[in-house]
């Protein structure tokens, strides 16, 4: 849509595509995109342009939440439908497909996580399929859904939830919470703190150890969140840049990139899942 009435410059087009549909409260006295000033008591509204930044923490990216929930529900609907009618006899094609994924995940979990925990496998399955589905939204041509949305009067629509750092960080922080929870549950609070304090260099180097271990611990969720976000954001960005080309030349780049991106999509979902399993295994293992 680079040529749309010539009203949108390239950078405007790109930033438009990278802006979430954010709903939040603009505080009193904020100057809005059209030059008006927010009145007394502030106002709840959809952000326009850079207003999302002004809304601060108490705003929500409606598109990210919407798409991720739709995709999560799609995943659970399909899988629970199959699970309800699952037969130990000859499986149908859908059940076969679902079972392939289940076995793939189960194999990975069994290979890495050697303790008993009924939550790790479903957690890994949810992570893998959900992230895969969210990433797959990237393969839908970048203009289709935003165009439909704008026709419906919605000015911003970012369809790939994993290109929103909030989504990836939300999941990474959940995993981080689980790491802390199971670490304390398995080793006790004292054991967990001891693990942070007394290694790798013994108790006389406690501050150094603590610093090192805390950095290592905090790096886990941050790397999880940023790896996925960075990969998907960059991929999306390249699709947007390709979309700036004349329409008859786009396929030359977009097709190879999309094909390559299928790999990235799967790989990122897989990496997030495997790292989660590894972190959970580390939470269980005594060092």
């Amino acid at each position: 849509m680079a040529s749309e009435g010539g009203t949108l410059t390239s950078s405007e087009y790109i930033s438009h595509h990278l802006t979430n549909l954010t709903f939040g409260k603009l505080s009193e006295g904020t100057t809005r995109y059209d030059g008006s000033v927010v009145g007394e008591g502030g106002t709840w509204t959809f952000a326009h342009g850079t207003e999302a930044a002004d809304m601060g923490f108490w705003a929500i990216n409606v598109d990210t939440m919407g798409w991720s929930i739709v995709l999560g529900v799609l995943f659970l609907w399909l899988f629970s439908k199959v699970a309800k009618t699952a037969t130990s006899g000859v499986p149908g094609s859908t059940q076969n497909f679902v079972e392939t994924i289940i076995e793939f995940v189960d194999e990975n979990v069994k290979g890495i996580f050697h303790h008993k925990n009924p939550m790790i496998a479903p957690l890994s399955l949810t992570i893998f399929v959900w992230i895969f589905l969210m990433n797959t939204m990237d393969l839908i041509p970048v203009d289709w859904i935003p165009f439909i949305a704008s026709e419906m009067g919605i000015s911003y629509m970012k369809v790939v939830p994993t290109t929103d750092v909030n989504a990836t960080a939300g999941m990474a922080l959940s995993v981080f919470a689980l790491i802390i929870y199971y670490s304390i549950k398995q080793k006790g609070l004292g054991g967990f703190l001891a693990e942070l304090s007394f290694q790798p260099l013994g108790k006389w180097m406690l501050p150094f150890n603590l610093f090192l271990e805390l950095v290592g611990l905090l790096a886990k969720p941050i790397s999880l969140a940023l790896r996925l976000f960075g990969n998907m954001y960059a991929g999306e960005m390249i699709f947007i840049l390709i979309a700036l080309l004349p329409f008859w030349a786009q396929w030359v780049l977009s097709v190879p990139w999309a094909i390559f991106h299928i790999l990235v999509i799967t790989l990122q979902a897989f990496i997030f899942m495997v790292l989660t399993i590894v972190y959970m295994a580390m939470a269980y293992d005594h060092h």
Partner: protein
Amino acid sequence: MNINLTIIGQAIAFFIFVVFCMKYVWPPLTAALAERKKKIAEGLDAADRAERDLQLAQEKATENMRKGKEEAAAVIEQANKRANQIIEEAKEKAVEEAGRVKAAATAELEQEVNQAREALRGQVATLALAGAEKILEASIDEKAHAQLVEKLAAEL
């Protein structure tokens, strides 16, 4: 890239999805998989057993056949022996019978020859007497010559 409430919303959604998956998706599917695995293992076991049974049955059948053949051979041999024996016995009996029949026939023959001879002798004596009478034309004193005639007849 604004960090906002979405991060918490996403975490909540994630939590709900995981719990749902843990309750309604994972257990039934893995149960089905485990059960199928068990079924397949049982099937393979049954196939193995059937194969072993078949082999056993085949061995048994071969053994039975061998035994049957041996028995049949023994029976045939025995029958042959018995047949030969019967034939021998029959031959012996036949020879014996033939000897007996022959002896009886010989005895009868001899007897009849003797009888005939006796009869002939009597007749010859008479004939000779008659002939002599005729030759001599004279009446021979029967009493006087009876001894002579009898002597003659005995010589015949």
